[in-house]
C-alpha cells in the first residue's frame, strides 16, 4: 500500500537534504562548493535545530570531507556528504579509495562543469571523470527524483552483497536551485524503507583488530577488483529490486530503475539521454508526435553499473539511436555514446547510433533544440 505523502515546494538541493535527514546518517562531513552548498547548509541547520542527531564534521577541504566520511564508514555508521565540480576533483584520491574500499558512503554530486573557464553551470564532466571509481552513479531528471534516488541509494549501497558507495547526480542549478514540487513521505516511513544501518558491512573493533589499506600483493589485489566488478553486476538487480520496493511503498517509478523508456516501444528515432535533458526530451517527443514524427526515448538513469541488457533490448526494437551527451571524452565522443555503441556492437545489434554533445557549461538545451536535432536525424 502506498503511504501518505505531502506535496511540498522545494529546490532539488532541498530534496537531497530531506532524503539525507530522513535516512538519519550518524556522520556528515562536508565542505561548501557552488552549487552543492545548500545541501549541507540545510543539514547543518537540521543538526543545529536538533532535528537530526548526527556528528557534523566541519573540515578544511573536500579531500578531508571524504576522508572523514571514510573513517566514519569504517567505524560502521551511516555516512553522508555532497559535492560538485572542483570539489569532487579535489577529493579524487579518496573517491577512488572509497569505491575500491567498498565503503557505502552516499554523496550526491550536483553536476557542474570543470574549470577553466570559471563557470558554475551544469554539465556532467565532473561525475563522468569518476566513472571508473567504483561508485554507483544515478542521474536524475527533476527534484522528486533527487529525493527518491538519494533515499534508494542508502538501501542499495548499504546492502552487504553490494557494499558500494553511491553518487546520485543532479544537474547544477537546473535542478539544484530550481523550485518544484516534491511529494515527501513522513520521515518514519522513509526511514522504515531503508531501515537502520545496524549490521554494518565493516566495523572497526578494538577487540578484533584489522589492518586497512595495507600492502596488498597482486593476487589479492586483482581478486579485490574482480569482486568489485561482480558486486557492480549484482547492483543492477539490487537497483531494480529496491526501485520496485520503493514504487510499492511510495507509488513512484522511473522505468525499471536502470533505464526509463518514454513513448512507443518502436519508433523511427530513439533519443538516449541522461539527466534533465531526458525530461526535456519527453516534452520534445510529445510535440514531435503532434507533427506526425515517430520518436521515443530511453533515459539512462543508472550509468554505473551500466544497464547493458536494457539498452540492448530497447535498441533491438528500434531503428536509429541518437545519444545526447552532456560531457565529452576529448579525442573521442561523448561518454554515453561511446558506451552505447560498444554495447550494441558486442551484442550484434545493428541499430545505427549517432550522437550529439549538448549543454556543456550550462548551455541551454531547450526542447526546441532537441526537436531540431530529431528532425535532422530523421532526415538523414
Amino acid at each position, binding site marked *: 500500500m502506498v503511504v501518505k505523502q505531502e506535496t511540498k515546494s522545494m529546490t532539488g538541493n532541498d530534496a537531497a537534504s530531506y532524503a539525507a535527514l530522513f535516512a538519519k546518517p550518524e556522520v556528515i562531513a562536508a565542505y561548501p562548493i557552488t552549487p552543492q552548498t545548500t545541501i549541507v547548509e540545510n543539514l547543518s541547520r537540521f543538526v543545529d535545530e536538533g532535528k537530526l542527531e548526527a556528528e557534523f564534521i566541519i573540515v578544511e577541504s573536500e579531500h578531508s570531507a571524504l576522508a572523514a566520511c571514510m573513517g566514519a564508514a569504517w567505524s560502521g555508521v551511516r555516512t553522508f556528504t555532497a559535492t560538485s565540480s572542483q570539489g569532487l576533483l579535489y577529493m579524487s584520491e579518496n573517491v577512488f579509495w572509497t569505491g575500491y574500499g567498498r565503503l557505502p558512503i552516499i554523496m550526491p554530486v550536483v553536476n557542474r562543469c570543470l574549470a577553466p573557464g570559471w563557470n558554475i553551470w551544469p554539465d556532467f564532466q565532473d561525475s563522468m571523470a569518476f566513472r571508473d571509481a567504483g561508485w554507483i552513479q544515478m542521474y536524475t531528471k527533476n527534484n522528486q527524483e533527487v529525493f527518491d534516488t538519494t533515499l534508494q541509494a542508502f538501501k542499495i549501497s548499504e546492502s552487504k552483497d553490494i557494499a558500494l558507495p553511491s553518487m546520485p547526480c543532479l*544537474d547544477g542549478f537546473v535542478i539544484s536551485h*530550481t523550485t518544484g514540487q516534491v511529494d515527501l513521505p513522513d520521515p518514519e516511513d522513509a526511514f522504515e524503507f531503508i531501515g537502520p544501518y545496524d549490521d554494518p558491512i565493516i566495523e572497526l573493533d578494538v577487540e578484533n583488530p584489522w589492518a586497512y589499506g595495507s600492502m596488498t600483493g597482486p593476487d589479492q589485489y586483482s581478486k579485490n577488483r574482480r569482486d568489485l566488478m561482480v558486486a557492480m553486476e549484482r547492483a543492477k538487480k539490487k537497483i531494480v529490486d529496491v526501485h520496485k520496493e520503493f514504487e510499492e511503498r511510495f507509488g513512484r517509478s522511473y522505468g525499471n530503475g536502470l533505464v526509463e523508456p518514454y513513448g512507443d516501444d518502436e519508433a523511427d528515432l530513439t533519443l538516449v539521454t541522461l539527466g534533465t535533458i531526458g*525530461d526535456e526530451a519527453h516534452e520534445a517527443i510529445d510535440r514531435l508526435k503532434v507533427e506526425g514524427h515517430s520518436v521515443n526515448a530511453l533515459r539512462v538513469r543508472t550509468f554505473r553499473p551500466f544497464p547493458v541488457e536494457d539498452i540492448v533490448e530497447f535498441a533491438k526494437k528500434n531503428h536509429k539511436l541518437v545519444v545526447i551527451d552532456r560531457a565529452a571524452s576529448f579525442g573521442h565522443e561523448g561518454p554515453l555514446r561511446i558506451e552505447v555503441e560498444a554495447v550494441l556492437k558486442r551484442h550484434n545489434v545493428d541499430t545505427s547510433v549517432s550522437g550529439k554533445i549538448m549543454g556543456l557549461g550550462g548551455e541551454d538545451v531547450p526542447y526546441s533544440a532537441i526537436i531540431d536535432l530529431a528532425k535532422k536525424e530523421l532526415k538523414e
Partner: protein
Amino acid sequence: MIEIIQISRGGSGGVTGAKILAEAAMYEGLDAQAIPKYGSERRGAAVEAYVRFNNAPIRIHSPVYDPNHAMILDISLLDRIDISRVDQDGVIVINSKEVPEELKGTGRKVAYVDATGISQELGLVLSGFTLVNMTMLGAFVKGTELISFENLEKAIRNYWGEKRAPKNVEAAKRAYEETKVVRA
C-alpha cells in the same frame, strides 16, 4: 502552461519572490517551477528569474524566453525586458507610480503600483535595499488573477514564519489593493 519572466536588482528579493510565487501556485493546485538565473546575482545587478505554472507536470527546465507575463521590480530595468516577446494578452506588472512612458500607447495590459513606496513605509529595507518582492507579488496576483490572494498569503506565511510574516503579508495586501490595471 503559464510562463513568467521577472527582473529585479540583486538585493531586492526577486529570487525569493519567484520561489514564493511557485509555492502559491502549488496551493492553487498547479504544478509550479521557479528558476533563478544565477551568475550575476550581485547586489544591484539585474537578476532574472522565471516561473512556470501548469496543470500537468512541468518537464521543461529551460529559462523562459517568450513569457505570458512579465514582472519588473525596478522601473530602470524595463528596457532589459523585450516586451515584444511577452504574450499580447499578458500583463506587464511593474513597480511604478504611473504607467511608464515607454508603455503608453502600446495597448499592453499594465498592472502598476508604487511598490517601493509601500515597502519603505512598512520598513521593508535591508542593507539599503528596499525589499519589493512581496509587494510585487500582491501586484502580480491582482494584475493576472491567476492565483488567489489567500494562496499567496499562505505561501508568504509559510516562507517567513510567524515573526516575519505580518509585514510581508501587509506589503502584498496593500499592493493587491492599490495596484491599478489598465490598457496602456
